[in-house]
């Protein structure tokens, strides 16, 4: 295109006025191109090839329950995840049973989980295993609170990457009172708690 323009400007019949306008236009184009290039270049200078994903920092989470209601998905992408390696396999599980439970059985009246997503199975006396059915879990965090208050804190809320649409601005992060929703490089995957403390 610039060739064409230059030719035009050399042509004797084109007025001086047009020349100036072409010159101005070329200048503006160069300016637009350079500013776009510099903004992009500057961003690139501090970019990373990795993608960012949202995760809950379990050390900050206060289990306010907003994860269940504020995710853009109707069944929140926040699920309870169980780090079995931290679990005490207790019979009386603070995450499974209501605080004042009388009978340690699986009756609906004893469950803490409103959707019964936490399953209990017998391993060996006196140990019980607890698993989360993610298709039922709505991320309310009640069990996490219970486990943290009475147990090892092996249950915790985390964002399931399979479900998370990875919004540019996580809707939960905006309302999280503890600023626990953070963006981490995708290669780091999950911010899960690790095993037993020594």
């Amino acid at each position, binding site marked *: 295109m610039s060739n064409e323009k230059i030719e035009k400007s050399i042509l004797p019949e084109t007025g001086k006025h047009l020349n100036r306008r072409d010159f101005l236009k070329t200048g503006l184009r160069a300016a637009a191109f350079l500013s776009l290039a510099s903004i992009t270049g*500057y*961003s690139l200078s501090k970019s990373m090839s990795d993608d960012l994903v949202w995760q809950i920092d379990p050390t900050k989470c*206060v289990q*306010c329950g907003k994860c269940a209601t504020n995710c*853009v998905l109707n069944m929140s992408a926040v699920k309870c995840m169980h780090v079995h390696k931290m679990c005490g396999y207790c019979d009386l599980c603070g995450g499974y049973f209501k605080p004042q439970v009388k009978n340690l059985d699986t009756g609906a009246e004893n469950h803490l989980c409103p959707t019964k997503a936490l399953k209990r199975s017998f391993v060996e006396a006196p140990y019980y295993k607890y698993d989360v059915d993610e298709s039922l879990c709505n991320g309310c965090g009640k069990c996490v609170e219970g486990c943290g208050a009475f147990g090892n804190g092996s249950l915790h809320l*985390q964002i399931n990457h399979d479900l*998370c649409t990875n919004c540019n601005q996580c809707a939960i992060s*905006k309302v999280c*009172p503890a*600023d626990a929703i953070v963006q981490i490089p995708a290669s780091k995957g999950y911010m899960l708690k690790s095993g037993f403390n020594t």
Partner: protein
Amino acid sequence: MQIVKYLLISIFLLIFFQTSNAQRFPEPDFESGYEVPETQTIAPRALSWEYLDVVVLFIALSVMSWFVIKKRSRKGIFWTSIFSIIYFGVIRLGCVCSVGSIQNVTLSLFQSNYIIPITVIAFFALPLLFTLFFGRTFCAGVCFMGAVQDLVNIKPISIPTWLNKPLSAIPYIYLVLALLLAATGADFIICRYDPFIGFFRMNATFGMFVFGAVILILGIFIGRPYCRFLCPYGVLLNWMSRLSFWHTTITPSVCIQCKLCDTSCPVDAINKPVQIKPETIEKGRNRLITLFVLLPVFIVASGFLASRLYKPLSTIHPTVHLAEEIKWEQDNSKKTGSEDSKAFHSTGIQASQLFSDAGRIQHFFYYGTWIGGAFLGLFFGISLLKTSIVRRQEDYEPDKGNCVSCGKCYKYCPVPPTP
């Protein structure tokens, strides 16, 4: 029996509470050979898919530009836009989109500790680059939001310029606000108030659904209401498109002023022939001089006015918001009891530190509102100036800034292409 067990457990718990901060219950010693399972996690979307998105964007832009500039095929434009709706909307659920990426780029410009993924930069820069070369072919349909509005625009009506012009100022205000909030790390409002994304995710707040539905219903009659009267990215595309090297034309050859395309544009972006002499030179010149003199006044006044709003605006930032709450607690010596307040007190951060942070953010907002306001003043001043300048024009031409290259005018031109 039960009670004894309970007592034992509670004593055990009490002892543990007192002595240890580590796990309360020891690691079980399984005798049955039971093995402790790993926590099952599903890996995030592979990085290669993110790069594929960029490739798809590039290809879609190229194909769209080819259809617009070379083939002049409305059908091609239409089917490319359907593809974009399906890929970027239905499959990718609209994130990250070029419109929202302005905020990520802004954040990375202003906050050195935000590290931006390259893919997001590509989503920001590619459409702008293509627009600088080919006009707003991105808007034509690569942008799935534009494509959706294009799809529903069944019975377009024209908006008179006296209404069109003031409404077109909204994107500038929106852009300034979005950039200010993104630069301070307060919020990504473009993403939050995206009217269409809810339809693709089939989920949004009730209010956003209503907003989206209103835009779509309006969009039946008014061509692309979001693109024209809201889209902040459109402002940048508009600037780039004005300078574009190649831009689509209504006629494939030479305009014969047949007026057939006159009302064909759904976004009122056709510049019509102006052959009249300017009104009395004296009057016009005086007005121009007045407006020129007023321009700096506009800039300063607008900057000043905007800067008066920095405090309420800064409360959009969570830190300032929290600081206001904690300040209130201090002044009234009671707790609000909100989750935010509780969470803050549990961190052990000093209120003075929080206030200091809030002060620095407000400081940023103060200068940000000054600059943003001054920019808006400049924009308003120039808009007024433009209403007093007339440029001689003989042909029907697309307005390079506002034309979204949708190609709906092609079929109205009766002139055959020059061989």
